[in-house]
């Protein structure tokens, strides 16, 4: 049944470009796909490892700038540049994550917040390398063994194939020993540690994985728009990534795609709608709505919109899960201050 559903969804996605003759809608779907790559990684970090990163846009940006700098300044081939766009953010994440994830408090949140701001300053100020506020132009199209991705529908297939791959990867992770260990860490680090799970190492792996996917998303983004500037990689974008992950449902495979779709569509709607009610307001006001939605979502539906569906599918697992989380909360109480 579930495989049928996945197959049906894939078919619908595969058929969409034939139905949509509208380039605007197609470009929105591509953007949703690119963001989904980032949010799937963030979802693993938040939903499975129980940590949050407020600097995901920085990894996204490092990926984009790696591609832009390697291809335009060093005339590097496009596929190796894309690989570098994944490796560099992953290495950076390892450096930041290693000391901060050893600690139990949420130092990673602060470190990534500061890191994100610092990287954004660097994008703006490192003119020799990044081109400063006006950015870098003339990024070539992605050339994979002679096949050049220079049309929207080609990009659409590329992005959503990658999303499908990441989907399958995360789904397998969910059911593997690592996935179970990560969930155990999220519920109670003390209990997980007592059961022989190396918490800091696994959290670090989840963080590095999230940075890798953000870098991939950024690299693809650079090849798609062929132009890059610091503007889309600021703190607001990091918040939007967190919002996407939270709205869709943490700890689910489908949550990120749902949340990303909702936030991107909402952003587009707000862009049209806000000037109608507030004539003097610019686009920056949409962040108010995102802020309010974020707070309301965390208060009333912290498990996200995707969770209800998941609960039905996994009804038989619920009882055990409840017993485990009860156990875990007992552990947290006794270990807390």
């Amino acid at each position: 049944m579930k495989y049928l559903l996945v197959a049906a969804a894939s078919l619908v996605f595969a058929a969409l470009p034939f139905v949509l003759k509208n380039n605007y809608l197609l470009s929105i779907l591509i953007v949703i796909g690119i963001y989904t790559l980032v949010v799937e990684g963030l979802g693993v970090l938040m939903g499975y490892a129980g940590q949050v990163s407020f600097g995901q846009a920085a990894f996204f940006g490092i990926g984009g700038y790696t591609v832009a700098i390697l291809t335009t300044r060093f005339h590097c081939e496009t596929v190796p540049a894309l690989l570098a766009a994944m490796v560099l953010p992953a290495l950076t994440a390892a450096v930041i994550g290693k000391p901060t994830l050893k600690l139990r408090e949420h130092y990673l949140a602060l470190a990534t917040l500061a890191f994100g701001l610092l990287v954004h300053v660097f994008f703006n100020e490192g003119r020799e390398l990044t081109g400063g506020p006006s950015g870098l132009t003339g990024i070539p199209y992605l050339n994979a063994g002679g096949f050049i991705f220079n049309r929207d529908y080609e990009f659409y297939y590329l992005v959503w194939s990658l999303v499908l791959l990441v989907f399958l990867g995360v789904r397998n992770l969910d059911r593997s020993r690592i996935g179970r260990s990560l969930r155990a860490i999220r519920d109670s680090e003390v209990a997980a540690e007592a059961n022989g799970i190396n918490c800091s190492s696994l959290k670090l792996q989840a963080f590095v994985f999230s940075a890798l996917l953000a870098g991939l998303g950024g690299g693809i983004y650079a090849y798609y728009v062929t132009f890059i500037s610091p503007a889309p990689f600021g703190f607001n974008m990091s918040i939007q990534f967190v919002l996407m992950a939270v709205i869709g449902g943490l700890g689910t495979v489908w949550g990120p795609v749902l949340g990303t779709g909702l936030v991107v569509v909402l952003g587009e709607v707000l862009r049209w709608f806000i000037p109608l009610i507030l004539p003097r307001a610019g686009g920056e006001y949409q962040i108010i709505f995102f802020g309010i939605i974020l707070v309301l979502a965390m208060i009333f539906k912290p498990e996200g919109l995707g969770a209800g569906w998941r609960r039905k599918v996994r009804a038989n697992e619920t009882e055990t899960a409840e017993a485990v989380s009860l156990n875990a909360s007992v552990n947290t109480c006794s270990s807390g201050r």
Partner: protein
Amino acid sequence: MHLDDQILQFFFSGLTLGSIYALIALALVTTYNITGILNMAQGEFVALGALTACSLSAAGLPLAAAFILSILITTAAGGILERAAINPVRNASNITLIIITIGISITLRGLALLIWGTDPYSLPSFTRGGPLQVLGAAVNSQSIWIFGLLAVTVSGLFAFMERTYWGKAVRACVINRMAARLMGINPHILSFAAFAASGALGAAAGIFITPITLATYDMGFTLGLKGFVAAIIGGINNVGGAIIGGLLLGVLEIFGAGLISSGLKDAVALIVLIAVLLIRPEGIIGAVSGRKV
């Protein structure tokens, strides 16, 4: 001016800025100790207090009345936000609470943009009179007010913690929340009070710095971040550390900006934060904080 005089001048400017950071860090650390929440919206209380005071003062209220009223408004805002957004989810995980305070912060910043726009607002200095000459350096009269605010706040906080029943309750809650609760101390009231007090402290810091730096809708983001850096330098749950951390950060920033490059001023805090987190995340002051797994 000789370099010696200039260094002294930088030092006093740094202490002025650092006192503000220390006040913000004080609010952050107190909230954290009582509730376990890193309040990312702390900086927004600073901006809210400063901007409200500017508007009230521009509307013709005498300075003192504008200050008191704006501190009261911000205190109420802090308390209301705690009841509306923090208290309903008090049993949620830390990550949820951090995200909520971030959400509150961007919402407040957006609302401030809507109400006050992007223009900077100013307040007159509290007292007239030229700068004081101290060892060859000129110290702004507003700086003296800021040092005074820090001194009064710290001694007031100390007296409250040591001398009153509620201060004891807070200390008990800091040591062990569960045990404090079993002794009949209501942590929800303390949490409410912590956010209200954070609002008051933030507003006071914002109002006192405005005559020097002007007030804008987005001043809270940077100031809140600096407060965090100060708190982290001192070890996130260490009140004394937060004050020293704030002063240290202020001095470092002014020296970085004055001796190296003025574009570096905000980057100094970010670099210090990352460096402290990477090298000594438990804070450079005080050895026993930051529990390891």
